[in-house]
């Protein structure tokens, strides 16, 4: 049938709109500029404010004012120097413990045929839904001065406050983060290597030490680096369970909040920034190597494990899971018990929050987190899209800016915000919007990394197909790229939402008389001796996160997306 006949000729009269194409040329540069400015203003500028205050007399930026006096003061005060050694000590010990535990846990999930893997996997991810203070609260209820076990079962004077308490809390808090990395590594490494070695006569021990361990080495290092960073930058657990044992994060807070020494707070922030930045760079360096170790033809079929191996790993995984479950059970239970551990009558009275904020803090947290989730997931996807379309040099530049937030501890960023934006003309300061912005920037890295990997999975021809058919940038993005990234969008949303609901360190300096947040309320309540109410607030946060998680799972199942498992999020 000849096509040159009637109705089709009408098409010739519909060229692409020249105006739209003219406008389209400015879309990408405009968005690029926006993202760049966003990161400059809300990341580099606050960071600069900290540098300025710590290195310049009176925070006045001038060559003549340059001084190392703050650092001298820090390093000559025995109490503050101790914080550095304390931080390094708990971080290194936690790092070693977590890496060893998680390696075997991930090994059990990927290389053995034990039963109940789905259960173990969900349990190990649980700490993600709670603030990093939950562990300390629960441990105090068990092993504190009035702990169920220490004071009532064993009746010992010993209590968990101090380094031991911090380490145990941090271990239980860091597990899921390290797990995600090692699980990915171990499932990506070709299991046939092990089989080949075995078929050549290697003993199982030899296979493990010569093949399995070396092939996972970058994953192990990366998980260790992440654990170190999480621990050294964490604030919630040490502030509750540290007692007199000060670490860098608590010291920053004490200097700023109790002593109003912003300059020393800024100085300690720099000292905290150094190790976390170094570890971040190290991690960045090795994560580029990991890729080459991963075989595209990895085979998921695992040969049946021997009985002894199965029993051993099942017991091990059960113990770890028990530890995590115990934390949650204690916190939830503690929030309903009248007087822990004397009067076990169940009551709702701890849910009548005695603080001024109470439930309003919770609602603020929820709407702030929803906004953070939606805007954060969207902006990072757009940023990833823009980045992927830019020329290599510029791409590198935006990439560098985008991964920087991961290297900056939340507490440091928060302090930077106070120093940079505490001016009357920054209208968003002192409102929940600064919390929104802070949360988006602090978690920018993971959002953009997830965006990049999603976009790289989309065939570049698809975008070119749209363009060749007359599609402009905006319509190509909204009609094709965005729908195709939907699953990743949900996951990034969930990540932003969870982080925003549970973070303490990033926002502790940003709450005020008018802005209250649920996670910070936990600390306030605990500080004022309302420990059970602190547990109640913690329980509320966990519940809300779980509800959103469940809703999202239903939505993504309904819309035909892949299952939104917790494992895939982080």
């Amino acid at each position, binding site marked *: 049938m000849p*096509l040159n006949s009637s109705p089709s000729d009408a098409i010739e009269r519909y060229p692409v709109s*020249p105006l739209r194409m003219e406008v389209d040329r400015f879309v990408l540069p405009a968005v690029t500029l926006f993202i760049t400015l966003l990161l400059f203003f809300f990341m580099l500028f606050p960071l600069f404010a900290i540098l300025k205050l710590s290195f310049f007399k009176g925070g006045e930026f001038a060559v003549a004012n340059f001084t190392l006096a703050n650092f001298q003061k820090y390093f000559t005060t025995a109490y503050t120097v101790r914080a550095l050694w304390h931080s390094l000590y708990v971080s290194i010990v936690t790092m070693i413990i977590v890496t060893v535990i998680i390696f075997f846990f991930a090994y059990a999930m990927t290389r053995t045929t034990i039963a109940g893997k789905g259960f173990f996997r969900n349990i190990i991810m649980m700490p993600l839904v709670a603030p990093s203070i939950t562990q300390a609260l629960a441990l105090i209820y068990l092993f504190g001065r009035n702990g169920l076990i220490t004071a009532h079962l064993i009746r010992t004077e010993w209590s968990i406050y101090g380094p031991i308490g911090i380490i145990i809390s941090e271990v239980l808090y860091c597990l899921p983060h390290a797990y995600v990395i090692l699980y990915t590594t171990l499932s990506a490494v070709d299991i046939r290597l092990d089989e080949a070695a075995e078929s050549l006569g290697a003993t199982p021990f030899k296979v493990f030490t010569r093949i399995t361990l070396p092939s996972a080495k970058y994953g192990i290092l990366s998980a260790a680096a992440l654990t170190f960073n999480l621990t050294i930058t964490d604030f919630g657990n040490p502030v509750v369970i540290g007692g007199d044992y000060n670490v860098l994060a608590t010291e920053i807070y004490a200097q700023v909040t109790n002593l109003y020494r912003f300059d020393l707070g800024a100085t300690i922030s720099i000292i905290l920034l150094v190790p976390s930045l170094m570890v971040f760079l190290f991690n960045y360096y090795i994560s580029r190597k990991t890729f080459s170790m991963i075989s595209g033809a990895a085979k998921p079929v695992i040969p049946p494990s021997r009985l002894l191996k199965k029993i051993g790993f099942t017991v091990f995984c059960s113990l770890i899971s028990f530890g995590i479950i115990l934390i949650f059970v204690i916190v939830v239970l503690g929030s309903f018990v009248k007087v822990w551990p004397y009067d076990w009558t169940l009551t709702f009275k701890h849910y009548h929050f005695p603080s001024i904020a109470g439930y309003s803090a919770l609602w603020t947290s929820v709407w702030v987190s929803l906004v953070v989730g939606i805007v954060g997931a969207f902006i990072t996807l757009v940023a990833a899209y823009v980045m992927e379309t830019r020329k290599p040099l510029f791409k590198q530049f935006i990439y560098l800016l985008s991964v920087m937030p991961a290297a900056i501890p939340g507490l440091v960023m928060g302090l930077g915000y106070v120093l940079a934006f505490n001016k009357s003309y920054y209208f968003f300061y002192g409102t929940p919007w600064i919390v929104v912005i802070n949360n988006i920037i602090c978690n920018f890295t993971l959002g953009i990394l997830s965006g990049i990997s999603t976009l790289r999975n989309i065939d570049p021809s*698809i975008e070119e197909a749209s363009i060749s058919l007359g599609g402009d940038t905006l319509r190509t993005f909204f009609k094709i790229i965005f729908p195709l990234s939907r699953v990743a969008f949900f996951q990034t949303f969930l990540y932003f939402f969870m982080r925003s609901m549970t973070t303490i360190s990033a926002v502790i300096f940003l709450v005020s008389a008018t802005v209250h947040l649920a996670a910070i309320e936990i600390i306030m309540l605990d500080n004022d001796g309302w420990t059970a109410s602190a547990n109640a607030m913690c329980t509320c946060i966990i519940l809300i996160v779980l509800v959103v998680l469940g809703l999202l799972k239903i939505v993504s199942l309904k819309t035909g997306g892949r299952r939104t498992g917790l494992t895939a999020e982080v």
Partner: protein
Amino acid sequence: MSKNLILENLSKHYGSLIAVNNVNLEIQPGEFLCFLGPSGCGKTTILRMITGFEEITSGKILYDGVVINDIIPQKREFGIVFQSYALFPNMTVSQNVAFGLKMRKVPQKVIDTRVDEILGLIGLRGWESHYPSQLSGGQQQRVALGRALAIKPKILLLDEPLSALDAKIRIRLRTVIKRLQEELGITLIYVTHDQEEALALADRVVVMRDGEFRQIGTPWEIYKKPQSSFIAGFVGISNFIAGKKENDRVRFGSRLFKVSGIDAVDGETVHLAIRPENIEALLPESLADGLIPSNIIETTVEVVNFLGSVVRVAFMLEDEEMLVDISEKEFERRNLKRGSKIRLYFPPDAFHVYKELFRKLI
């Protein structure tokens, strides 16, 4: 109607790498032109420069006499079919085909008519509301073809459109593409590394290597008169013999083949190419009347490759393995098998003579 497209001194450099080196070509309206070459020869780069997805380092592309170097892809109105189909997975067949029209704000009524027309053309009426993932590879590529045609493109460009498909479907879709092109009278530029595809489809074939055009001609010209040993080896199959010229003959080991039209001086090394089907298998008893005795060899069947209508037989000539095609009927009649003695004749005018040998292919 399509207008002519001209590539003028066109080059593409990636840093120090020269992907396309100063090529010139005029593509006629309604022509089916094929860029043929091994991977990395620059054929896709040329296609991408024509579509506007690749910046031009130097030179010009003209459509209908107008330089289009700086015109954005959206405004070029060229239809593109990608190797990976690149269908929009979140849209149905109809929505995919309608996409280009939607982008042009064509009234829905016109879109509906047009989409129906296109679906008829590509034989997918009744599949309107299916998603790409519910279609076979061949169907998907037909949708991609329909989607590109829906905007009435000035030129249709296809980048290895069939290489992801099974052999059978590939051959069937070839016919679909050829028929559509002829019916619509559209200029079609086709990129492939499959010489069979190029020969079967194109009006004109451009053979490329290392970013340059090595030969431009009809499939017949390319196949029958390959201008270099590279083309003789790349398009179809050739046996290569290297020897020194002695008068009107070429010495190869102990043999002295008579070869027509040698353009070389005595003693110079030349490379002879001869296609397996141009070597004649002689009957053992037949007299070599009128044949040049020095071009007859006696040898043994080493390997038998049954290809259907012909049997490709490997034999040794002075320690070099060579191929000859014998028709299946002939092969059976003579009861040939591995180890059989055969007599072969190399007609003097069946040789192509080259001064250089392109080795990389072997």
